[in-house]
């Protein structure tokens, strides 16, 4: 390696470029180096704000789950529809996601870090310190976006990447397309079950078919609200979740018995507010989803009678329940209710009514089968069979037990003619990080080199270049 030789072009575009892939979601933000098989950094998109010593302080990352801060409240820079609302904070959260685990701090002044022999008289008397060190000045950045991201938001994104982070090259890719790539498909119908949204994205030859993109808010958070509705109507007594941070110790109780617990109290001016409690309740709920919640396997709806004449619901009752213990020690067995929590994703009528829920009752058009139908209606007739044969399931909430079976049944019923084939990676992390993995593959391809928007191009054409280049 002669240092005076310029790097060859073929070498440069390949794996040697340590591009960073940033996949911002509503619930978590995933970041890592291209070419790796899982994001190195996974942080919640939620951030905390509190006051200490008269100053407003922000807290990012997982830490907030472990130790609360005085008067902490939780925010999310991304709106319920998956589009960034608070750009300043989105930038901070994203920046934290790569600084904390990937780029870190600089290894010091090159004159003094021990790697270079500089004689003392060569040392510049005053170090020309860059006024502001920018975090990404030597890493190209690939970011993902939802299929319905408006042009303004896209331009703002490249602006942040280029001007605030100083990335030498940038690309913005649709998360649906990337999820298809992660499954090794250039054409697919991607069904993404996220935290705030579910979306159906038709992709043909690596291009998104914009008219077919459908999304609705029946994601993981909606399922949580349904579970809360179940808890409220629970017999023998309604269940309230008390997160771990409010509990100092608990005593084991029999199933269904009221909890015996010693609560922790915070002084009123120090106690974290309701948004923090909601965030931590959500953690218990996601444990509940993992351990208890189940999708009725089908082939017919939960409310429908089964072929034997017994209603499906009665069938579900005969299956053994699953127990769950709450942080305060209350535990009980959940029977048929555990099927009802997700049923409304497929059957709007099955939604559990709850007047306090932040989610309005779902309309039939918001359910997954209807979204798929609407999506296919928006694409060319000739493409439909091909898309149905390549259905890709991704997103963390799709990990609900029995989800893909049910989806398969629903699609086969709806489209009896063409062959329906559902692809869902069995590996948990491949399912959760589908679009990140696709981005990792894409950014590490040698041929992708020509796709990057370079800093020079950006400076020449302005942020609008993203509309032309990242279609």
């Amino acid at each position, binding site marked *: 390696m002669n240092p005076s030789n310029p790097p060859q072009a073929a070498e440069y575009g390949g794996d040697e470029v340590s591009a960073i892939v940033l996949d911002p979601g509503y619930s978590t933000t995933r970041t890592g180096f291209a070419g*790796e098989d899982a994001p190195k950094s*996974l942080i919640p998109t939620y951030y905390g704000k509190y006051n200490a010593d008269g100053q407003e302080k922000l807290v990012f990352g997982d830490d907030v789950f472990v130790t609360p801060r005085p008067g902490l409240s939780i925010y999310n820079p991304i709106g319920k529809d998956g589009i960034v609302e608070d750009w300043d904070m989105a930038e901070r959260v994203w920046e934290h996601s790569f600084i904390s*685990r990937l780029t870190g701090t600089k290894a010091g002044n090159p004159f003094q870090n021990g790697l270079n022999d500089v004689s003392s008289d060569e040392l510049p008397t005053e170090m020309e310190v860059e006024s502001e060190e920018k975090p990404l000045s030597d890493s190209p950045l690939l970011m993902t976006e939802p299929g319905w991201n408006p042009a303004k938001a896209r331009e703002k994104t490249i602006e942040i990447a280029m001007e605030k982070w100083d990335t030498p090259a940038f690309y913005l890719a649709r998360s649906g397309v990337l999820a298809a790539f992660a499954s090794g498909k250039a054409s697919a119908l991607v069904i993404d079950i996220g935290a705030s949204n579910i979306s159906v994205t038709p992709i043909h030859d690596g291009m998104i078919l914009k008219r077919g993109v459908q999304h609705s808010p029946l994601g993981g958070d909606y399922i949580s609200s349904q579970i809360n509705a179940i808890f409220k109507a629970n017999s023998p007594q309604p269940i309230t979740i008390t997160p771990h941070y409010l509990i100092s110790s*608990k005593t*084991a109780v029999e199933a269904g018995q009221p909890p015996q617990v010693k609560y*922790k109290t915070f002084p009123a001016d120090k106690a974290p507010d309701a948004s923090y409690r909601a965030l931590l309740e959500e953690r218990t709920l996601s444990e509940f989803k993992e351990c208890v919640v189940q999708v009725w396997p089908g082939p017919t709806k939960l409310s429908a009678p089964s072929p034997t004449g017994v209603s499906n619901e009665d069938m579900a009752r005969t299956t053994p329940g*699953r127990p769950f213990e709450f942080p305060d020690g209350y535990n009980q067995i959940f029977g048929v209710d555990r099927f009802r929590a997700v049923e409304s994703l497929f059957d709007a009528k099955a939604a559990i009514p709850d007047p306090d829920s932040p989610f309005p009752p779902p309309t039939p058009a918001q359910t997954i089968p209807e979204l798929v139908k609407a999506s296919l209606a928006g694409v060319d007739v000739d493409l439909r069979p091909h898309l149905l044969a390549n259905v890709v399931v991704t997103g963390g909430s799709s990990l609900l037990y029995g989800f893909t079976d049910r989806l398969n049944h629903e699609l086969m019923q709806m489209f009896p003619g063409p062959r329906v084939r559902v692809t869902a990676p069995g590996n948990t992390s491949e399912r959760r990080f589908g679009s990140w993995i696709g981005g990792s593959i894409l950014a590490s391809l040698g041929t992708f080199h020509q796709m990057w928007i370079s800093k020079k191009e950006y400076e020449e054409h302005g942020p609008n270049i993203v509309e032309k280049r990242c279609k």
Partner: protein
Amino acid sequence: MGRKRNQRKSSRRGAPLRSHHSSQHSLLPPITMPPFKDEHILLIAPGSQMTLAQLGLPETFTPARFRFPTRMFPAEKKGEYEPYRVHERRQEVKASNGTDAPKPDVEMKDAEPAEGTPAAGTTVKTDENTQDNDESTKTIEEVFYEEDLASDEGAIYPIENGRIVDWPCFFALLTHIYNTLSPPFHTPIMLVGQPVWSARDREAITQFVFEKFKAPAFSLMDSALAACYGYGTATATIVDVGKGKVDVTAVTDFAVNEHGRGIALEGCGGDAMTDRLHELLGPKGFTREMCEQLKRSNITEILPPGTPLPGSSATARQGANPAAAASTGGSDGDESAPRGPGEGTQTGIEGSNGDEDEGVLDVAAIVSGNPTEYLANVEKEKTTTKKGAADPKGARLPNSKKEKASFQFEEFVQLEGEKAAAHGSRQYVRHARDIEVSVERFLLTSPRSKVGNRLTSGILEDIATQIHHTILAVPDATKRSELWDSLIIVGCGSKVKGFTQALLAVITQKFILSPSATIFTSEIPSNFTTPLPTGANTPAPMSQSGPMYHPAAPGVNPLLVAATHNNPGMPGVMPGTPSMDPSMLSHYRSTGHSQTPTSVKTLKLPEYFPDFKDQGNSNAPGASSGSAGGNPGASGTSQGGHGMEEAVFLGAQMASKVFFVIDQGLSKSYLSRVEYNESGPSAIHEYIL
């Protein structure tokens, strides 16, 4: 100045003098490498306070032979660093005398050990002044540079809470360690990495190691994984209690789970406990240094939650200034040769070098022959006998039942008077006295009353919460139960008596599920998928049985407990509830899983490294505290249940044996120089373990 020191060092070492291997790469064979040898492996494990290092793997693995305080002092030239504080001393030498007064060096050897008092710097000045006063016209002023081994004034600590905050200083420290150990050319380097280091940090270190040391091979191993190697287990939850932070890592099948990992959790380390003690005892006249020694003493203990404190009132000896308490061993120390300056900070430099040349390492002899150690033992005996005499009744009670207990506080007091002046240098006397403490000594993990930025509920609860969070974030849900059952607690912060037990108790009362919540999805199915460690890849079978803590809450039917936990002690008891019909089980529980934890246990440490076991606490004096005088009296503190807080270093030795010697790079476990030349520093990411 630096040259002068180096010369002295190498001559003292008696090892063949080697220059800094700047031309070394030309000596290396270009492609094919001869196999690495055990005795040519350099291990470095940097920590926020102490950096452990060792050259060569002994026959049976031992605790690290070298301990360097993780600090450097700025040298005169900007950007350069010295391992010790160097200060100028001007001395008048008679011109006619001719002797160049090699005094400083000699004196240094005689000086008292490294644990210095902050006042050290000022006293030097008085020395100078007195010297200046009787200056005569016939003398020439000469400037001596004196290494002050006792002082940590102006020290730069390059690592804070695991993070590298001062890169040039960190690199200087690595260089100092490298030069001190002076490895031969063909030495692969194993560095134990802190979890908090970012990818770029690791690249920078890789680049430094290859370009500065010209290492033929380099391996950067995650400290959590190293702990797993030390315990010979593939799956474990590692809790690393350091000085200022705690790391909690879930390792499954030798893979570190990055997501949800508790990295550098602040306010949970050993310092936090000292701070709490200081907060409690500060008003009673305790200095922070006293609290630090109290924390290390064997009367300090963390009691499991709910244990009543001995005595009714939580008041310590009132009024009496502890500093005025009975002073005892002021007479010892001084000139008694053994405690030369070297031993205090870098245990056994002299001792080990001769051995290196022979290739046979009798580390036990070194350690037992270590004067510091020896003295510590003597000291300990003295303490115990004395205590027994003074308090014959209380001595029979266990510590946790005694309302008051005393520990021996030691400090180094400047020797004053003519003797010191005659030497022209500082002399210290070790000054020991007993200080009595009340029940505050049990409260070191209670939450601090001064709430900072965190609403902490005490460090144990914070750590427990982090463990819960970390294990819950492991994507493979079937592994979680095993992770709860294999906690590994390492790090010097965990050495406080009762730490492990109290932590387990906190987890039990906060997170353990009641048997009724788990009876229907007992651990039976998941036990099929998680085989017990067979010891296939470890030299001796590991026993994971014998839970330290019975997970069940009190008052629960023991049969239920036995049924749900599938206790190895009662293999015959199987749950007999009707719902356990096997066909139903297989149908409905094949992929679903049950909640965790139903139990929590620590892993038993391997039996086959007696050195580590015996040495469990040997690093107390000086080692875990570069600045704050170690308390040799506390070195014998017995730890209930664990004594291997340096399992990380043991693991690093085992890993280097496997990586460098046994499979010779077949498993892609180290980055070779050839590959580094091809791909650059970022290639390290493919090898990071």
